[in-house]
């Protein structure tokens, strides 16, 4: 393979694509604006939600007053981004159904003042309202605290009557679980940071899905599109070999595909960050993502090239290639929810027959700090890409190019 020929094809492809401003805008600029914009938009809409909460104290006892005042103060601090306005009412009469009503019934105080009495609080909401659900969740949280304080008080009373010294928290929680982490990369290594690194790995592994789509579009256009634009026949009559032509085209696709993938990934990370998820992207994780993305573009371009050289039109090339996209989608969506290391060995081996899986596994291996595994998965990706490129070159005969007309 002559480098000067590959360079010439790469130069032409990049020049041609760099002047296709609309495609560049759609593939690179649009995701950079759209995903963070979506997060800001959804977050903005969410934060503008407001719920009016009516607290109806039908009991009027000292205990109910303490409960109601504490609850009003607790809700007044804000509920998960939802704006809450608390109003007091003597009865449910006149309370609008769009609001949340918390009813403290008669007998509430006397029940709770006894050593084993039970009381209940009624919460009235409209079904299917996410904002109301947030308020109910906050009410439950307050009730749990109030209840805890009450139980500790009852333990104290009982202990005093029995003449015992009792540590109420120890009495209530004799056994606890502390969560620690195995080897996790990233700053600090443990605790909340480790969870952020693990979440980041899942987000990064999922973002690999966005690498696949631009590669399919660019390669199918570069091969079938060139045939449809009537420029391929003349190109094949130069001294460039089929392998040189395909290599130049796939390298150009890789440059643009990686740029598009970077834009998509930055947008996705921004989306998560703006949506309130803490992400910790270690240098190793970013490096492995970049290497995986480059090899993934090459692999996808190789597979798409095999399909494209056998396709009559750009539509059939892209439709065929989207089957590849579906496989990638299945793998990378799974990486959001599935722990690959927990899969049975036979399932994991079957998954590894699909080359796309190795990009995900490389990312997760980076998080576990297993650099040997990272190298192995990247090597499998590289070999698969080379294999598909060779198959595409063998299928890329002049006869096939002209016969499809």
């Amino acid at each position: 393979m002559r480098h000067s020929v590959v360079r010439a094809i790469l130069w032409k492809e990049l020049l041609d694509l760099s002047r296709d401003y609309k495609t560049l805008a759609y593939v690179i600029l649009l995701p950079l604006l759209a995903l963070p914009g979506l997060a800001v938009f959804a977050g903005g809409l969410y934060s503008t939600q407001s719920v009016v909460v009516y607290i109806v104290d039908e009991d009027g006892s000292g205990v109910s007053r303490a409960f109601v005042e504490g609850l009003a103060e607790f809700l007044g601090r804000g509920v998960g981004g939802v704006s809450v306005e608390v109003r007091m009412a003597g009865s449910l009469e006149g309370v609008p159904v769009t609001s949340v009503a918390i009813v403290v019934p008669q007998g509430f105080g006397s029940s709770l003042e006894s050593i084993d009495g039970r009381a209940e609080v009624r919460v009235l909401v409209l079904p299917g309202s996410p904002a109301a659900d947030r308020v109910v969740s906050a009410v439950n949280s307050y009730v749990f605290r109030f209840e805890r304080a009450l139980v500790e008080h009852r333990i104290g009373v009982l202990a005093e009557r029995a003449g015992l010294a009792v540590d109420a928290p120890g009495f209530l929680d004799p056994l606890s679980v502390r969560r620690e982490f195995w080897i996790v990369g990233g700053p600090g290594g443990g605790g909340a940071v480790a969870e952020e690194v693990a979440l980041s790995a899942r987000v990064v592994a999922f973002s690999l899905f966005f690498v696949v789509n631009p590669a399919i579009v660019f390669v199918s256009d570069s091969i079938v599109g060139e045939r449809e634009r009537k420029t391929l026949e003349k190109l094949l009559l130069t001294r460039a070999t089929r392998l040189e032509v395909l290599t130049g085209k796939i390298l150009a696709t890789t440059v643009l595909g990686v740029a598009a993938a970077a834009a998509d990934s930055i947008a996705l990370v921004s989306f998560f960050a703006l949506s309130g998820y803490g992400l910790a992207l270690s240098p190793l994780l970013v490096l492995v993502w970049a290497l995986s993305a480059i090899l993934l573009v090459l692999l996808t371009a190789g597979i798409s090239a095999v399909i494209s050289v056998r396709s009559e039109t750009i539509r059939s090339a892209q439709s065929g290639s989207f089957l590849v996209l579906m496989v990638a989608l299945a793998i990378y969506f799974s990486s959001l929810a599935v722990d690959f290391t927990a899969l049975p060995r036979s399932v994991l081996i079957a998954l590894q027959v699909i080359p796309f899986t190795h990009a995900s596994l490389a990312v997760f291996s980076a998080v576990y700090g297993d650099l040997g595994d990272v190298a192995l998965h990247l090597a499998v990706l590289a070999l698969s890409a080379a294999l598909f490129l060779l198959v595409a070159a063998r299928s890329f005969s002049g006869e096939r190019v002209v016969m499809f007309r």
Partner: protein
Amino acid sequence: MDKNHCGCSYDSVVCLCGVEKSIKGRQVLRGVDLEVDEGEIHILAGLNGAGKTTTVRIIVGLVVRDGGFARVLGEDPGGGGFGRVRGMIGYLPEDASVYDRLTGLENIEFYARLYGGPVEEMVERAMMYSGLSIEDLSRRAGGYSKGMKRRLLLGITLMTEPSLVVLDEPTSGIDPIASHRVKRLLRRLAAKGRSLLVTTHDMRLAEEIGDRVTIIHRGSTLESGSPGELMDRYGAESLEEVFVRVVEGVEA
């Protein structure tokens, strides 16, 4: 002069005999005979669908024949040694186009780099053969007229100074002035000793510039000779009349 088993002289630039080709189960060529000599303009004439384009694609090595004999510049175009002479052939397909987002000059530079050799010399030659001005060549080719694109492609085809020039319908769809320019250029190239194979169904063009004419119909060669010989043979006043009689003779 020594002849091979097909009746072609050994120094002929193109020699086809009994060439056959099927595409997607349909026999497109049933027996094409063709001989192109050095320094001549040879017209391959036929109706649309006669097999002209498939024949020239076999000659330039884009399509491999199923049967028959073929030698181009001494090599079998379906064989492994054809790569040695591929660079000596300039081919302009009928519906070829240029890269619209590249300027005319960038189109020329791209092909010059792919052909190898001294790029600057080739670029200069392409500019000369295309006859396009520097201003035109500095513009994106997407804004060119069909005639300008054709001239640009002709310049690119000729920039390697090929020994054999194969042009598929070179004047199709271009205006009379551009057509006149192409014809003048073809005569100039033949005078320099280049061999030209031109496909067309325009018999006036064939009569005007052709040294020899081969008529093919439904994938078979029906007649071959100089325009004068063919007109004498059929007692016709024009090549167009010859063509009609030859083709109608088969149809009858």
